[in-house]
């Protein structure tokens, strides 16, 4: 597993909450939301699924979007992705 970059105080343009939704909703939702974003905008994706730590950076790499990093709360992760593709 690649080393995940942890970030704080990122200000997203759009937030989507998929906490407690099953895998692979994080990828489906990510795909759906990125389609709606303008180039340069930042998506914040909330999920409790730890597999996303691997999947989301990889997805970004594959699709040419920028993976900014991840922030952690007690019970879920916040992923930040900038639309660059």
């Amino acid at each position, binding site marked *: 597993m690649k080393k995940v970059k942890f970030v704080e105080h990122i200000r997203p343009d759009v937030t989507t909450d998929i906490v407690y*939704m*099953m*895998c692979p909703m994080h990828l*489906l939702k990510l795909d759906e939301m990125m389609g709606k974003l303008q180039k340069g905008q930042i998506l914040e994706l909330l999920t409790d699924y730890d597999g996303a730590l691997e999947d989301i950076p990889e997805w970004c790499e594959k699709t040419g979007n920028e993976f900014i990093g991840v922030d952690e709360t*007690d019970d879920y992760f916040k992923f930040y992705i900038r639309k660059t593709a």
Partner: protein
Amino acid sequence: MQCYFDHVATTPLRPEVLEAMMPYFKEEFGNPLSIYPLGTNAREAVERAREQVAGLVNAKSTEIIFTSSGAEANNFALRGIAFARQHEGRHIIVSRMEHHSILNSARFLEKMGFTATYLPPDRHGLIDPEAVRKAITDETILISVIHASPEVGTIEPVREIAAIARERNITFHTDAVASVGNIPVDVKELGADLLSMSAHQFNGPKGAGALYLREGQRIIPLIFGGIQEGGRRAGTENVPAIVGMGRAAEIAKAELPHRVDGIRRLRDRLIEGIMKMEAVHFTGHPEQRLPGHASFCVEYIEGEGMLLMLAAKGIYVASGSACTSKALKSSPVLLSMGIPTHVAHGSVVFTLGADNTEEQIDYALEEFPQVIKRLRELSPFSKGWGDIEEGGTCIPKK
């Protein structure tokens, strides 16, 4: 003459609903997750049904999660919210008017370390919103109060209770299985965060229910697996049943406005006729009740006898008596309303639907007094109860 007066048990499937379902049993058998046309057709059918069901309760289609039944929707709501919010508190409030699927879920949560408050109704079966307010603690995360009681027909002040829950940032769920499709139900107007419904209660098929989940409300799945229902309820969709539920919802929405008055008129006639008999008590709220619902306790006799004798005459009704339940326990709802146990044994429930006629009501009013008379002739209490000892336990001898 056959008279089906048990619409609270289930309702007849509308022919148009069956017709809408048929292709999905046959040629359109695809899995909604498959990407070829057979799959996308099924997916489109499910999504159309979602819009139809959302339309019936004024929700967005993304706020509807299909389930296998009303009971599953209730289990899902209670467990799903309790576990999703347990880090904020571990206290829930439910009423004593609830269906077993709520009460037993609450009991399960108690075993898992939650605490639960069970609110008693008044003699009409109403839950007092102020009692809900008083039961709230800093730990309360979820309140669930039934919309309408299938046992006594009472419609609860759900809107007031939802408003109290909202003030305190508590999630509010209502079990609307007995009401959706039978009276207008609007999730926005009620202010519910979650609402359960069931297709076979409004002329749809069995095997389909739904949970309305307000946008932004987190819930932990009851069934883990794949991405069906937005990753919140796994399992390949019961496409024909879902399609049937959608069609039934569409029909109910279109017909409700002019259906309710006719049913209520028949119901009132039935009540008027039955209340002419001696030692018969009306149960539930006299006005605030489901339009097709008429429930009574008949003194000095027991409910199962009434059911069997009426059934022999082609009249099908229900009872909350102990003997009609497999557990041999009287309806906790009737008892919580303060009805003495020996009277609760004489419970009888008539629930009417759009398929009932005036002739059927006349026939029932002719036959029912004879059934009561007959059973009272058999009863040692035909002249009154005498001295009855309340309380104690009734464990059948081995």
